[in-house]
Structure formats: C-alpha cells, structure tokens
C-alpha cells in the first residue's frame, strides 16, 4: 500500500509528459500548415531589393504596404494597369447573387422534395444528385453557346447564371437531407391552419434552417469565389473574376518579377473565403452534423 502515492505521482508525471508531447506535436503541425501563409505575408511586406538579397524565411527589415497598394490599384493585368480592384468587384458581384440565388433555390427544392412529395420526387432528386457529379469541363461548350444565345457572354450576370445553375445540385442535396429530418406534422398542422406552400416555407421551414443555410452559403461561396474554369472560359477583359485576374497579373511580367506584389495579390484574392470561414466556421461544423442526432 505504501507505494500507492508514489505510483500516483508517476502517473501524473507521465500524464504531464504526454500532454507536453501532444501540444508539441500539435504546435508542429500548426506551424507546418501556417508556414506558407507566413512566408506569403512576410514576402508581401518586403521590398523587391530585400527579397532578392535576403532569405525567403526572414522577417521583413522594414515593413511596407507598397506591394499591397500596387497589387490593388496599379498592377498590370494584361495590358490594363488597373490593379486587382475592378476584378475583385466583379467577383463580389458574381459570388453574392449566385450564392444567394443557388441557396434559395436549393432550399425551395429541398422543401418541395421532402414535404410536398409528388409522384416521381425520388427520380427528380436522383437526377439532381447526378448533377453534382457532372465534370464541369463537359458543359463548357454548350454553356458558352447558351450564354451567347442569351446575350450574357463575357459578362458578370452570365457567370451568376452559370454558378446558380450548377450550384443548385449541391444546395438541393444539402437542404433536402436537412429537411428530411424535420417532422412532416409541422407542414400538416400549418396546412390545416391555413398556410400555403410559400407561407409555410417562409414562416416555418426557413426559420428552422439557419445551420444548414450557413453550411450551404460557406460551401457555395468558397466554390464560386475560387472558381477559375468558368471565369476563364466565359469571360474576358474587364468582366473577369479576381481568380483569373490574379493569374494574369502573375503572368504579366516586364523586367524584374515582383514577388511581393504577387504574394499580396494572392492574399487579397483569398481573403473573402478566409473571412467567411472565420465568421461562420463554427456553424459550419455544427451544420454538417445537424440531423445526425435526433433533436
């Protein structure tokens, strides 16, 4: 019995060491993942001279925001030296309506497919599901013909249409799987109370959907903002989204390569998605697991 306290002490010591090792490992992994980001930020704050002479990992000796300003408003993208600003604006004008529209249609589809089951609802859902597996390269040619026919070729509204249409498959899947878990009796009760299809949707179903709305919005925003293929295929010149403009900025070189400007531009292009994750990330995890536990 006398060795019990000693054993307990060894246990706590062992546990402490385990804890230290755990945090060391976690810290190492965090560093590993953050390193590229740190290098990008550091490089974007240096001037060209320092980049050429110094080490890649070194912290900037004098912090300067010149590269950021240049990337935002002066850098040449192709022949236009306007910086990223107008293209960033294009991306916002493309992503915000496309995210809202595709989420709204997804919610309506999911609601109709689960709460107003009609003959063939499962077939319709199966076909929509299939839509989320279509490789986008397949639709490039017919889509560009369609956009031309509609007079939306090489325009931001054209991109909004493309992203809304191809987003519906995913958003419907999300909302449908969430609405399956809502009790049908709610709709029956509201029907007897005198509410119709849209009233039930606005007054009862949508107010119960914040978690799945957040998941869908994050997913759609990330997809649409980061899209390169559609942006590069269906737009040119002033209508391009920021991802395409970033590519052109990096590829437009006259003389010395301005790594600090490239890095600043890349961070600017990635900032909105980063921001969405920081603001709504915790709802994302919660929403992904919603419905798995009966609540």
């Amino acid at each position: 019995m006398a060795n019990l306290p000693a054993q307990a002490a060894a246990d706590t010591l062992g546990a402490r060491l385990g804890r230290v090792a755990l945090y060391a490992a976690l810290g190492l992994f965090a560093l590993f993942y953050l390193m590229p980001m740190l290098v990008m930020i550091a490089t974007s704050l240096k001037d060209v001279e320092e980049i050429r002479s110094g080490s890649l990992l070194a912290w900037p000796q004098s912090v300067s925001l010149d590269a950021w300003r240049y990337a935002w408003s002066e850098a040449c993208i192709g022949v236009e030296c306007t910086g990223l600003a107008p293209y960033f604006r294009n991306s916002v004008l493309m992503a915000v309506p496309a995210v809202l529209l595709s989420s709204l249609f997804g919610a309506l589809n999911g609601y109709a497919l689960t709460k107003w089951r009609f003959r063939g609802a499962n077939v319709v859902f199966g076909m929509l599901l299939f839509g989320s597996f279509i490789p986008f390269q397949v639709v490039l040619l017919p889509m560009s013909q369609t956009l031309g026919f509609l007079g939306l070729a090489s325009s931001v509204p054209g991109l909004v249409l493309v992203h809304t249409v191809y987003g519906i498959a995913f958003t419907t899947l999300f909302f449908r799987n969430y609405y399956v878990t809502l009790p049908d009796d709610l709709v029956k009760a509201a029907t007897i109370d005198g509410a119709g299809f849209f009233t039930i949707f606005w007054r009862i179903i949508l107010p119960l959907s914040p978690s799945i709305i957040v998941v869908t919005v994050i997913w759609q925003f990330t997809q649409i903002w980061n899209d390169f293929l559609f942006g590069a295929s269906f737009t040119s010149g002033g209508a391009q989204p920021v991802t395409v403009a970033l590519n052109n900025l990096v590829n437009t070189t006259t003389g010395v390569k301005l790594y600090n400007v490239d890095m600043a531009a890349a961070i600017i292009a990635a900032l909105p998605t980063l921001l969405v994750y920081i603001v709504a990330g915790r709802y994302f995890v919660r929403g992904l697991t919603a419905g798995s536990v009966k609540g």
Partner: protein
Amino acid sequence: MAHLEVRNVRKSFGDTHVLKGISLDLAGGEFLVLLGPSGCGKSTLLNMIAGLDSITDGEIVIDGRVVNAVHPKNRDIAMVFQSYALYPNMTVKKNIAFGLEMRGVPADERARLIAKTSALLQIDHLLDRKPAQLSGGQRQRVAMGRALVRDPKIFLFDEPLSNLDAKLRVDMRTEIKKLHGRLGTTIVYVTHDQIEAMTLATQIAVMRGGVIEQLAPPQDVYETPANMYVGGFVGSPPMNFVPATVVDQGNGLGVRFRCAANGGDGDVVLPLADPAAAAQWKDREVVFGLRPEALTDYNEAEASIREHAHAFDCRVDVLEPTGADTLTYVELGGSTAIARVNPRRTTRPGDTMRLMADMSHASLFDPSTERRI
C-alpha cells in the same frame, strides 16, 4: 356542432387497400373514438377527414357538404397531432395565433381569442415561451389551444396522449372530457388505448384491417361485442372465451364445458339467460364469452338477488393480486379464463374454489365466423 358523415370511404395505394369501405354517421356534439391496433387505418381515416390524405373512393360530408375536394383550411376543422407539431420557431402566443392570422383575423380580435383560450387551458403564463421550453403536458395544452382558438366545427385528435407519461395521460384525459362537456363540439379521436376510448367516447368505432368491426356507444361495445375480436380488444383483462356446447338445461338451454375441480375433471352446465337467442345452436359448439367481472367468487347474498348468477367449482391455477381485485386464473373448457375475485376470498393455487358466473352478461359467438350469436 357539426354533423359528420363518412360514406363508404376507401383508400388504396396500388394493390394495398388501407381502408375497405368505411361508413359512419356522427351526430353533432358526439365524441367518436376510432380504436384499433397500429396499421388498422384509423389515422388514415382521420387524415382523410382532415383533408391531408386523398380519398380513393367514397364521400366525406360535413354538415351536408361533400368536402372531398375542399382544402383542409376550408373544412373548418382543427387537429391535434401526436407529436403536437408546434412550430418550434414561434412563441406559444404565435403558435396559437398562426391559424387566426392565416385567416385574416384582426390583431385585437386575435389577442382577445388568445387570452380566452389560454385562460381556459391555464397556459396564460406560458404565452411568451418557445415550445422547447415547455414540458410534455404544457406542449399538449398549447397544441389543444391552437385547435380550440379557431372554434372549429370538428376537432380531430391523433393519439394526442400517447407521448405523455402514465399519470399525466390520465389527467389530460379527464381534461379533454371536461372540455368536450363544456364546448360540445364534435370530436373524432384516434387511439389504440381501449381505456381512453371507453372513458372519452360517446361512440366507439373498433377498427381492424381497414374495416369497422363495431360502431356503438362504449357500454354496448363492452357488454355486447359484435365479435370475438372486439371482445378481446376492449376491456382489460379481455373477455374470457370458453369453448362450450349448447345443451338442454331444465326448461331452457345451457352451455356445457369441462372444468377441473375437487381433484377430478367434470362438466359444468350454466343456464343461458336468453335461451331463445341460442335455440338454433342446440347441441352445437359455440364460444362462450364472459367478462372477468361477471366471473367472481361465490357470495350467497349476491347469488340470491341476481337471477342469472350460477355457482360452480373450479381449480385455481394462478393468482394475480391487483389491489382492488385478485385476478384468478382458472381453466374452463381447455382455455384460460380470468375471474375477478375479492382479495379477502381468494384461495391458494391448486385448491378448488367456488365461483359464480353472472349469465346475464354472457355472450355467445359462432366459433367459425367469430361473430356474436
């Protein structure tokens, strides 16, 4: 006070026939309970009356108007669901007001009706809470409030008490009964609980496999079940069914069955209270049905005042005390029967006991069709 008529209503999904021709006629102010096991079609019938399920064939008529094609909201009915189906995002007040709002009732009138209803159901202190903050019993009241506030012609209840614990269920049962007494509205109520059906109903429709087996006031269903299924489903413990033969007995007829007693195995013959009804069954096999409370311990005083009480001896197999009565298991005609015996007059298992059968409450059934004779 609405008159509800269901005329030969059928419901089929392809080759599956859920309802096979249901007809009933319910006068205004009646309390109809649809009673049956799960899958008998009772909830489907309720949903069809509500307009939530389409009707394959037949007519549903409310106050003389065929409502087959009328939208649920225009049928002037209200429904209480088993899951309560309260809108989780709205407060109790908004839950109750929703139906009024949809019908365009002005705000001040809504407030007056909510106050009246919530006072009636004693939920006035809960009006600003969300459903998640309420107990099961409170949710049940709110669900009823949502139905009551519109003052509909017909109330529909779909197993409203089955999610409550046993004690609360009994309390709410009484409240629903009081409410019906006060409002006098026509009610259709679905349950699988025969005690709920007996206590609440003015009419019970016992259903099985998409047909109504019997439609009658609760006491009639209990005392003169239309067939063995109804006798076995209603009542706890259920009716005793004893294989027996109709034989001559004195001036009339009696039922004869075997029964072990006093170390031997003998025949018991009990005279029938109404021999005329069984005349054509003489010397044929029947099933003799007797409620447990009509089979009791022998009591000389009682036997002398009851004209149709007859005593016989029988060996006791098992005793189950319930407090008020001791359920005494005996074997009659080869099948187990239960007698309700005064706990002070029980005997030990294996002993022979003198029992008394009140033949004025006896039922006879045809063994092949299981129908009442």
